[in-house]
């Protein structure tokens, strides 16, 4: 641990697969590490598990590579020099000038308090190098009825099951797009839910267009086969090129309409059928959580599925010197890629801070090769599951696009057609869509698609946001003058030399 007042060598933000691998590696290389996460325990999304109080004797039952996590946790416990700061929700990352230490401003506690009048408990952590391993959040495409209770996000169902040991219903349809659907369907079925169908908007044939990416990642084929076998065992029927285009029910979901999809995800008229269920788990892929970096002007790249990830150098460094990224912040690629990138980034940071050569060249080369293979697979996956622009045809006029502010598709379309809005920001000003509690995380993709004048126009790059999480005003006010205020959203400089 650094002496009080001294910055840590490195702050790792996020204790998922990427952050854990990085923190353990950096500590084993002799660095002092602050490992921060909003959650109360490590694991991130992939290794999410029940709280210790649940005294689960078989936490591995919902995980097929629990041993990897258990191994990382043991190394973390054995490592000297890692300060674990769980329950720390970081809302801003700043530095006074390039080369000076990073400051991470965090809210502590359960981090669930949105009451702006409540006294906030804020703290600041400083570090010479910074690794952003904040993962992703889910992408959503609205459809009529998606705000009914019982309609939940696919990753949310997975998270509530893995940590809360809870199911949203007894008969759960899983729908949307992307590999997360298969993971969610198999774990929901294993935990006792009846999962009649898993409904994928794309086909899986898209992967076949990338034979090299497949051949270089035999593990991914095994993973697919394992999911396939589990679906068969639980009698879950996979349907491709189909989507849930409506959820029905009065006060909770009772059935869904499934439509076949034609070109560009356009629903095929006349193909509708009704499937009874008491819950629907739905999601359309993942979006990297990069706002802490993009606010500082960090460069991004557009992935094949239309999401924006941080643009990185060969050793995981972002366009801002001293800021590295690993895991889904560098592109949605799954837990294996996150583990490899976390380790690689930690070795690169060690080399920069100590001036030593990082580790045997062989280890570095092997990690880079594995990272490149997994990234190639991730790119193939992103291309295979990219939403087709025809999805907007399943929106009704009164479908709520923004769940927080209850803004309908008709109002967003009106802002676009009659008031000339062409980007999410103008739609927000005209309709309040994206202005609510979730800060546009849930409706962002949908609003961007509707705002793009032509249905196939490129969605606008990610919004720069001032704060990565809602912050009680008291906490902002209590920042001492020594804490530089967060950079303004449109300020290209990195923090204020106050």
């Amino acid at each position, binding site marked *: 641990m650094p002496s009080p007042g001294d910055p840590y060598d490195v702050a790792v933000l996020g204790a998922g697969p990427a952050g854990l691998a990085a923190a353990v590696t950096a500590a084993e290389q002799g660095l002092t590490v602050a490992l921060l996460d909003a959650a109360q325990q490590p694991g991130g999304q992939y290794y999410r598990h029940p709280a210790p109080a649940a005294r689960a004797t078989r936490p591995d039952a919902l995980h097929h590579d629990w041993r990897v996590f258990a191994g990382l946790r043991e190394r973390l416990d054995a490592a000297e020099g890692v300060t674990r700061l769980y329950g720390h929700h970081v809302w801003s990352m700043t530095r006074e000038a390039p080369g000076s230490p990073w400051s991470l401003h965090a809210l502590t506690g359960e981090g669930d308090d949105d009451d702006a009048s409540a006294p906030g408990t804020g703290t600041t952590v400083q570090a010479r190098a910074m690794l952003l391993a904040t993962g992703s959040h889910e992408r959503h495409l609205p459809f009529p009825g998606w705000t009914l209770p019982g309609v939940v996000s696919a990753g949310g169902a997975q*998270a509530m099951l893995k940590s809360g040991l809870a199911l949203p219903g007894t008969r759960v349809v899983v729908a949307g797009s992307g590999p997360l659907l298969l993971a969610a369907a198999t774990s929901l079925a294993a935990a006792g839910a009846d999962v009649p169908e898993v409904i994928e908007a794309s086909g899986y044939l898209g992967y076949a267009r990338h034979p090299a990416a497949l051949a270089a990642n035999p593990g991914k084929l095994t993973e697919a086969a394992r999911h396939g076998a589990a679906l068969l065992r639980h009698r879950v029927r996979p349907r491709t090129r189909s989507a849930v285009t409506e959820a029905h029910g009065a006060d909770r979901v009772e059935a869904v309409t499934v439509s076949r999809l034609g070109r560009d995800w356009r629903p095929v008229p006349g193909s509708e059928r009704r499937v009874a269920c008491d819950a629907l788990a739905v999601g359309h892929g993942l979006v990297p959580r990069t706002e802490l970096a993009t606010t500082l002007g960090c460069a991004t790249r557009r992935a094949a599925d239309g999401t924006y990830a941080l643009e990185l150098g060969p050793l995981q460094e972002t366009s801002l010197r001293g800021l590295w990224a690993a895991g889904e912040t560098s592109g949605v690629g799954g837990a294996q890629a996150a583990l490899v990138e976390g380790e690689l980034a930690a070795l690169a940071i060690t080399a920069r801070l100590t001036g030593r050569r990082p580790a045997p060249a062989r280890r570095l080369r092997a990690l880079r090769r594995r990272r490149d293979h997994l990234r190639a697979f991730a790119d193939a996956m992103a291309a295979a599951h990219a939403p087709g622009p025809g999805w907007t045809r399943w929106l009704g006029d009164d479908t709520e696009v923004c769940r927080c502010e209850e803004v309908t598709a008709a109002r967003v379309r009106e802002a676009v057609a009659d008031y000339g809005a062409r980007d999410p920001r103008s739609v927000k000003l005209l309709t309040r869509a994206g202005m609510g509690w979730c800060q546009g995380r849930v409706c962002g993709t949908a609003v961007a698609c509707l705002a793009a004048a032509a249905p196939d126009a490129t969605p606008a790059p990610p919004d720069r946001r001032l704060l990565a999480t809602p912050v009680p005003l008291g906490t902002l006010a209590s920042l001492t003058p020594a804490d530089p205020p967060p950079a303004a959203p449109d300020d290209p400089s990195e923090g204020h030399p106050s």
Partner: protein
Amino acid sequence: MGQADRTTPADLVGATDATHFFTFDGRRVAARPGQSIAAALWTAGILAWRETRGAARPRGAFCGIGQCHDCLATVNGRPNRRACLVTARPGDEVTTQKGHGHAEPR
């Protein structure tokens, strides 16, 4: 397979059988140690615990990870608590949050 002999998530991971109780709109709800309020409500078959500010429509947990804020509930008199993040404690009084959750408009 009948309802009674369905596997449950808690069986699957071998979690403790211990439970405690809190109330939701006056009704007794069981929770396992460490479970969030949202997870305990789901297990009790309750999916909605908020009415929206505009159309007073029912909502409950959606993202499950603290991002969407759909799951806001009033806990022990304090509104706007994300039920998916707050651990249920014995004797908690959870009530449906109506609108912004404050008695007076702000």
